[in-house]
């Protein structure tokens, strides 16, 4: 009987996690693993490699946070979330941070009770269609069938766009990006609309990519970024400054390759403060001195992560564009670390 109870206890402990919500940081440290919410599958942002590991632009951020907090980028537990699940999952504490190409909007920030910690990717909603349709602009889409993912801001933008332009359309609501692509290729719909990055990602998977075009209109602003729960400012700071450190690292020329040698000290005081050889930024966050070193070592700086998963060298082939550093004419800009 006693053995049975031990068994039962072990199982309960294995499956339930009783966390004392002192703070997310302490929870993560005591659990020894960062629970990170990502997409159920979106090329470039969150997808599996052949061994079944989740990788991508969004997943790389999770790894950087895990490295900064726990010292090991592999200590991430990925939770694949659908559009409907992501907010309840974050709100309930099932995940510690949500990095699932989520648009920063007023109501999500204010009404749903989350804190967006920055913008990791500036996106906008566009349309992709066949060149054979013979149109050059999304304003000529009157009467078209439009494939769209449900439960996203794109659904609302689409309705607004067609209403404002006095056009009609047939929405073809689809649950996931994959199904939407299948439907589009089968010509169930004339155009597919989603974030421009997603369109580019989708287009790369077409056999006849040249037969399709992304229309010039970008009908919405979609600043994508990681978010955490309202009310835990320390954790929000950590999440925010890991992202900022990655961006600053690119600006300062700190890369995955040279971060170890720079960590010992350099002639640039900004780098020294960030990497912990000067000052005590890590302690202020409640982390170790070398938090930023670990975060950068995990997957490189912002630019390296971008190039690895989204950039021109990948199948997606996205230009930096507005996602270049402000020094290169883009919008990516992080506050100074001092």
């Amino acid at each position, binding site marked *: 009987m006693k053995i049975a109870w031990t068994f039962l206890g072990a199982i309960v402990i294995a*499956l339930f996690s009783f966390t004392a919500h002192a703070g997310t940081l302490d929870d993560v440290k005591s659990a020894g693993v960062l629970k990170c919410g990502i997409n159920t599958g979106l090329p470039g942002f969150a997808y599996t490699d052949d061994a*079944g590991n989740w990788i991508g632009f969004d997943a790389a951020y999770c790894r950087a946070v895990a490295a900064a907090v726990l010292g090991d980028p592999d200590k991430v537990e990925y939770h694949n979330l659908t559009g409907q699940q992501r907010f309840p999952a974050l709100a309930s504490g099932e995940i510690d941070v949500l990095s699932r190409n989520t648009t920063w909007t007023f109501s999500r920030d204010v009404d749903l009770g989350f804190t967006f910690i920055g913008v990791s990717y500036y996106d906008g909603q566009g349309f992709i269609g066949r060149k054979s349709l013979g149109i050059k602009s999304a304003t000529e889409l009157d009467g078209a069938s439009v494939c769209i993912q449900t439960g996203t801001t794109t659904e609302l933008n689409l309705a607004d766009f067609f209403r404002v332009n006095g056009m009609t359309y047939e929405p073809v609501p689809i649950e996931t990006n994959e199904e939407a692509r*299948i439907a589009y290729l089968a010509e169930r719909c004339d155009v597919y609309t989603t974030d421009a990055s997603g369109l580019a990602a989708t287009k790369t998977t077409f056999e006849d990519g040249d037969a399709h075009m992304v229309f010039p209109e970008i009908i919405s602003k979609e600043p994508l970024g990681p978010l955490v729960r309202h009310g835990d400012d320390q954790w929000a700071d950590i999440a925010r400054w890991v992202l900022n450190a990655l961006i600053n690292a690119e600006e300062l020329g700190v890369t995955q390759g040279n971060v170890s040698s720079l960590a010992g000290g350099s002639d640039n005081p900004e780098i020294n403060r960030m990497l912990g050889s000067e000052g005590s930024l890590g302690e202020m966050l409640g982390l170790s001195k070398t938090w930023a070193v670990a975060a950068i070592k995990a997957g490189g700086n912002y630019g390296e992560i971008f190039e690895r998963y989204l950039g021109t060298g990948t199948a997606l082939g996205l230009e930096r564009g507005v996602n270049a550093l402000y020094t290169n004419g883009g919008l990516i800009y992080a506050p100074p670390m001092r």
Partner: protein
Amino acid sequence: MTDQSFFRSQADLLPERSPPPATTGVLGWVRGNLFSSWLNSILTLIGLYLLWIIIPPALDWAFFSADIAGDDRFACTSEGACWAWLDQRYNQFLYGFYPADQRWRVNIALLLLIPALIPLLFDKVPGAKIGRWFSLAYPFVATILLVGGFGFESVPTNKFGGFMLNITVGLAGIILSLPIGIVLALGRRSNMPVVRILSVAFIEIFRGVPLITLLFTAAILLPIFMPPNVSFDLVVRVIVVVTAFSSAYMAEVIRGGLQAIPRGQYEAAQALGLGYWRMMALIILPQALKISIPGIVNTFIGLFKDTTLVIVIGLFDILNIGKSMVSNPDWLGLSAEAYVFVALFFFVVCFSMSRYSSLLEKRLDTENR
């Protein structure tokens, strides 16, 4: 002498004739079974035509002009199906994201299922009594094997996927729902109004709503009902709602079994001075459960098929693994192959279970006569 002339000899009888040719042999069978009437002939011809347009192209697609090797879909050059992915992806279909070096634990858990099931399904095997103790311990053994602990490396449940997720959710649901179903079935037949009403309410509520809304509840609402400092994992939450769902069906199956037990059994037990619980545990339930086994197996088949619904809350069961494979650039557009494979998998498992349950039904049918 006269007697002899009175009786006709054998030779006087008409010679034995063979039956009319139209009722024997292949031709007779064809005539009797396929062309016995106008309507029948038309049906036969329609049937043959359907077979002709379905079977040869299907076989050709699946086997004769199919490709079976290659690294990606471009290696598949012929007209038929492309099975090249099977070789590279079957591990994902079976184990999902379970760590490769720990997959033997899943295999052992699945293998142990056989000795755990045999004493329950066939009562005539030797050692069935001892075997049942193992059956009782199996859920604990399997849980430890799968999630870890006791020296095994811990594997978080979000690594569960593929066929093992279907099996895990299905089996856990059915095992846990059996005792709850028994309690609910007894509750529904109880003469305590409160217990009866609550049981009926539970059963009707969970039978009345689609499983998919319960899964949404598990994914979205259950965490809200928990105390603020407790969170538990999605697969466990899914198992909780699946258990509640199948308990309601189980209760109805067992209620059917209870109703089939003749009144005399109850009276005899009471006459022996047995109380309610001892009467149920020793006399009624063993009989009722035995005749409920086909129903329980059918409930399990239904539940097992329903485990594919976890796809709507982002879990990667075998169907979702298939769908995600189809979206991989290497294997794009092979949805027919992936779905056929998954369908075949379910068909083999469910069909053999349903054969077993109908076999059992027949056996019980004769035993009761």
